[in-house]
């Protein structure tokens, strides 16, 4: 079958097969069908990322993991993070951010802030539909908007959230064990010191009676 135009006909067989086949391929095994967005929403994979958010455990005020160490602010490639450290009534800096702003019109979702955070406090969200009528103001996301619970993180990326929890738990246990060892050491040191003092006192006591003799 090699007459002039046979190649075109062969190609048209392919398009016809695709067109007619689309009515019969119910399983969509080979074809992708249009998702009827916004009525129908895609299920995003766990790793899917868009913009960062801050995690808190329990209470949003006291449970915030961020210590405002500003590593993410320094490492952010497009420099879209702005942090101000909080201070207590006496003006002493405390390990908590007072201001934590991310300009998501600048953020490119590269995930480097997540990787460099030593306190597991910043993670990637998978939200979309972030458009707004305001060009600048509403795209600067503040701390209140960024704070989301650890449960929310579990709901979007359970695998990674569980791994993070396990890491935090292990670090806590290690710290506790270290504290326990330190406490035991302190107790032992105290006991040793007390024993030493006691021994010294006893020695002094033993030497005391001889003093009057010397004096005499």
């Amino acid at each position, binding site marked *: 079958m090699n007459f*002039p*135009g*046979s*190649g*075109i006909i*062969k*190609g048209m*067989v*392919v*398009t016809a097969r*695709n067109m007619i086949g689309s009515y019969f391929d119910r399983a969509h095994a*080979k*074809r*992708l069908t249009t998702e009827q967005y916004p009525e129908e929403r895609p299920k*995003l*994979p*766990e*790793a*899917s*990322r868009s913009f960062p958010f801050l995690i808190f455990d329990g209470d949003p005020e006291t449970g915030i993991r961020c210590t405002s160490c500003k*590593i993410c602010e320094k*490492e*952010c*490639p497009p420099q879209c993070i702005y942090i101000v450290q909080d201070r207590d009534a006496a003006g002493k800096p405390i390990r908590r951010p007072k201001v934590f702003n991310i300009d998501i019109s600048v953020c*490119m*979702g*590269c*995930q*480097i802030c997540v*990787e*460099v955070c030593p306190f597991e406090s910043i993670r*990637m969200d998978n939200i979309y539909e972030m458009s707004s009528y305001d060009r600048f103001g509403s795209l600067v996301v503040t701390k209140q908007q960024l704070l989301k619970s650890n449960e929310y993180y579990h709901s979007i990326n359970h*695998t990674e959230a569980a791994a993070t929890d396990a890491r935090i738990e292990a670090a806590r246990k290690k710290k506790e064990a270290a504290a326990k060892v330190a406490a035991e050491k302190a107790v032992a040191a105290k006991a040793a010191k007390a024993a030493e003092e006691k021994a010294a006192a006893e020695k002094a006591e033993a030497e005391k009676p001889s003093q009057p003799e010397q004096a005499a």
Partner: protein
Amino acid sequence: MSFDPHTSSLSEDNGAGAQTLDVSLGPQHPSTHGVFRMNVRLDGETIVKLQPVFGYLHRNHEKLAEKMSWLASMPYTDRLDYLCPITNNWAYAVAVEKLAGLEVPERAEYIRVIVGELTRLANHTAFLGFLLGDMGGWGSALMYAFREREKILDLFEALTGARMMTNYMRFGGVRCDLPTGWLEKTRAYIETFPAFLDEMEQLLTGNEILLARLQGVAPLSAERAINGGLSGPVLRASGVDYDIRKVDGYGIYPRLNFRVPRGTVGDCFDRFMIRLLEARESIKLLQQAFAQIPAGPIVNPAAKQRGIKPPAGEAYGRIESPKGELGFHLISEGGEKPYRYHVRPPSLINLTLLEEMCIGSKIADVMVILGSIDIVLGEVDR
């Protein structure tokens, strides 16, 4: 006479009493691949002069990289050739690893090959669609190509979190391990891929109109291709056996069995066919990598990501990206930032022979020739 793009149109006498015509093609003709402009001088419909104008997408990538840490440049490399971000990451990682003397664990090398070859498949299928679009076949071929590319991008999203801006490679490894079930899904998908290539070949390669538009158009001799510094599929279509995967043997490519397809005359049809053949070789590579991938660490534990300070010196790391030789020339002074950061983009170098390829062709062929080189403007302008 001098060629001034701002003064238009009728210019010098062609000797036969008629005048040549200057036409500005671009910067946003639908068939041009992004914002690229060609100032063309026509004698009738024949091209007598062509001057490419680029820089419309210039983003100051190289200078920016000198102002930020080594790691912070990694997401910006995604934006070079935005159709294949993973190979851009890979080339940058290879260059920094060379500079810092880092080893890459075995599993990471296999993951790199898997995602790199998937990128090659995505790029080459997209190329087929774009080339047909350039020829006026806007529709079937592009839709079929994008249907397959979409599935590969979904795999990338499940792995790296983003469809295109992957930011996946790290110095001495990769960022995250393969999620559960990803490898099985990819393996099952790759098994269906040869059927898609067969379908594409049935749709396109025998088509008489396509053959008339591609065969014998802008042939490029092997000598000229080498002298022009071309690389990748464009060079191999001219019959030169040069593939950096074979020449450098970086990563684990020496262990894998694959062939390097070559063209004979280097015309547009050879440049078209070579992509189809390379895609078939990529499938072979992927299947071997699936079978051999070991367990183990995915990143060298000695490698520092944040605040990495490679020792003073310079290094040129290169890989075979889907478009050709992608290299990064880095100079370090031992600090937190590169002293000099230079990208050798395959698209730009492959574009340098555009005028030579176009002269003597008809104006309708210019789009086809440009399409057959396969450029991405993000990489040309950087």
